[in-house]
């Protein structure tokens, strides 16, 4: 039992159920001599380059994140980069209705393919499928939510919170039906610049994305953050591929 004389016991429990649970857990662990919870237990583990997007508090499990911006500006790259470390460390990633995700690129961004479940063709029962996936996956990525009603979106967000899973929704600006629910975090890609491609020379190396993050419970931030995806690794740039060298010799 928890010792009522322990100093931690004197701290009043918070009103917020999430916080209250954390306080309780902490209390039990301190009293039972267990190691304190690592950040991994309650937050999505993030790789270095995307960690800064979510600020000090990180991204708590149970959140819904909506990615906005122009289609083709790197929204999917961003989503996969955020979820990559989770798939390596915490649990499974489910992908619904994203017509033909380049899974090779997912793997290059660090997603563990062994912990990935893909619904291989577009299905009409998006809400139901996503809700089942949320039971077993730590994160579910929704791409094409054309079939989702407002009530379904709300139910999915609640389900994600209940199952402590992260719901990631791609919501490009040119979509007819948008995600209407207020998500916990909105990532907006305001601008994207390509690195490496020139007029008949070079190749795509990375994308520089300007991203503004809006947390539901925090004051809005207007200064965009720049991140480079995929992160550039020096030797990769130095080595031209077979195809390229052959081309130069031929030309």
């Amino acid at each position: 039992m928890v010792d009522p004389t322990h100093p931690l016991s004197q701290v009043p429990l918070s009103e917020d159920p999430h916080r209250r649970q954390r306080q309780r857990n902490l209390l039990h662990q301190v009293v039972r001599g267990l190691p304190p919870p690592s950040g991994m237990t309650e937050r999505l583990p993030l790789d270095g380059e995307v960690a800064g997007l979510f600020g000090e508090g990180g991204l708590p499990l149970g959140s819904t994140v909506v990615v906005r911006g122009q289609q083709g500006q790197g929204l999917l790259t961003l989503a996969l980069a955020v979820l990559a470390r989770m798939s390596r460390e915490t649990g499974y990633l489910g992908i619904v209705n994203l017509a033909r995700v380049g899974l090779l690129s997912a793997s290059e961004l660090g997603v563990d393919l062994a912990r990935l479940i893909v619904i291989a063709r577009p299905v009409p029962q998006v809400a139901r499928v996503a809700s089942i996936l949320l039971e077993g996956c730590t994160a579910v990525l929704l791409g094409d939510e054309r079939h989702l009603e407002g009530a379904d979106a709300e139910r999915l967000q609640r389900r994600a919170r209940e199952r402590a899973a992260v719901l990631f929704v791609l919501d490009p600006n040119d979509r007819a039906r948008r995600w209407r629910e207020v998500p916990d975090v909105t990532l907006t890609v305001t601008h994207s610049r390509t690195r490496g491609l020139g007029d008949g020379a070079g190749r795509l190396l990375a994308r520089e994305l300007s991203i503004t993050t809006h947390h539901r419970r925090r004051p809005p931030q207007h200064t965009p953050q720049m991140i480079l995806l995929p992160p550039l690794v020096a030797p990769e740039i130095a080595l031209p591929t077979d195809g390229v060298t052959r081309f130069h010799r031929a030309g």
Partner: protein
Amino acid sequence: MAPETLERLLVVLVDDWPLIALGAQEERSSVVVASQRVIAASPMARAGGVSIGQRQRDAERLVPTLEVLMRDPAREVHRFEPIVHCLSEITPTVMLGEPGWIALPTRGPARYFGGEEMLAEEVAICLHALEERQGERFPWRCGIADGLFAATLAAERKVVVTPGESAQFLAPLPIALLRDIALVDLLQRLGIDTLGALAELAADDVLARFGHAGLVAHQLAAARGAPLPIPYEGPSTISVVAHFDEPILESEVLLAEGAGSIERLCAQLAEQGLRCTIATIGLLRSDGYLSERLWQHHHGWDHEGLLQRLSWQLAAAQEGLSAIEEGITPGVSTLIVEAREVLSTQGGQLDLFSAPRHTPEEIERLSLRLEALLGEGVVCVARLAGGRGPGERIALYPVGAAPRTVAPLPPWPGQLPTPNPTRLFAELPAVELLDERGGGVQIDRRGILHGVPVEVVFLSGERVTVAGWSPPWPVEERWWDRRQGHRQARLQLLLGDERVLLLLWRSGIWLLEGLYD
């Protein structure tokens, strides 16, 4: 952590229940498969080398005459009901999990029948009588020990373990009996081969080295109390009771009510950070009859699972009813759902080895549910494969059919460099790539680009200016075959609106292969 005394349990197991439920004939080689893996096999099939967990293809190769049956969960439940009914005459409250497994708390009935041996005998008599009545044999086994883990193993070995001696009973058994595959693998490599060897270690050390999963395994091996029963403050039981002024007759209505109750229970559990591993469902009929069952789940019940068990129990309660009395059927006046054994969810996440929160088995079960909804072959997992194009380098497998181990891929010249496109087009729509004079940009036989790309025209008629492009990557495949072989080349194209496309030049036209989104 004081060692808790575990509840004495009698477990009855029926071997290969999924097969027996389907009514397979004993003398044939037959297997039941789910997600392309064998989950039950007849003795004949086993004699031919078939084992549980094997891939369907492998099993068919071993025994060419193999009869392959699809799993039928509804039937498994339905056919198990007579056994449950038969045993609930010995003690009213039985514990169920998956069909084919049933546990009875022995405390009360053992006293009534004059000892546990006598109780086991009584169970045997009842089951023999049932077999006589039904005219078929179930290969059942039963055993008694402390706690679920030991009792299930005792049942497999048909023994009654003396109270308090379950740890000694478990000690010589192989460590592989634990469900946690990753942990078992690690322990074996560290030289811990038996449950006894694990139980001898100090609990604190096990926790420090193997995390929560290790502690759970340690407690199972030592036949000690439930894993980390958390000091739980608040109401002594978490339960939801629904009274209906008008007794409910239709099962659909009751299930709808039940869904609400279960949801409230799950919400309460989630609020407290608990998961429920044993739930009690009670149905009180207006004529005073109470159907109460315990439902056990290793990782904790979720909403859908519990609702399904409610529907099983309801079906059973109604079936018994129609057999007893014809005419007016009394409805259900009260529904009770109670979390009988709870664990902290938090332990499940406190992990030193970054194991996933869900086991592969759970994911497989979940995929089965998705397959039932969407059809076979839609729920997939991916593995890297050899090839040049970004699409070729990924192989999709239906869940359960994917190879467990993947050999490292040999180098494959001519691959596109990273990053690869995040979206691929299945149909490869044609696009036009135009130079400043409006002529088509082409690639010649030597892989050289002719013309300066200025504009791209999509199938939809949309025209976008080109802001940059890469030199082409020529791909020559099957040059030795005149018909099949084709020269192709890939080109990265940067558009004015910062979109980047991957184009494929094949047989003199440009195709849109991917989008770097």
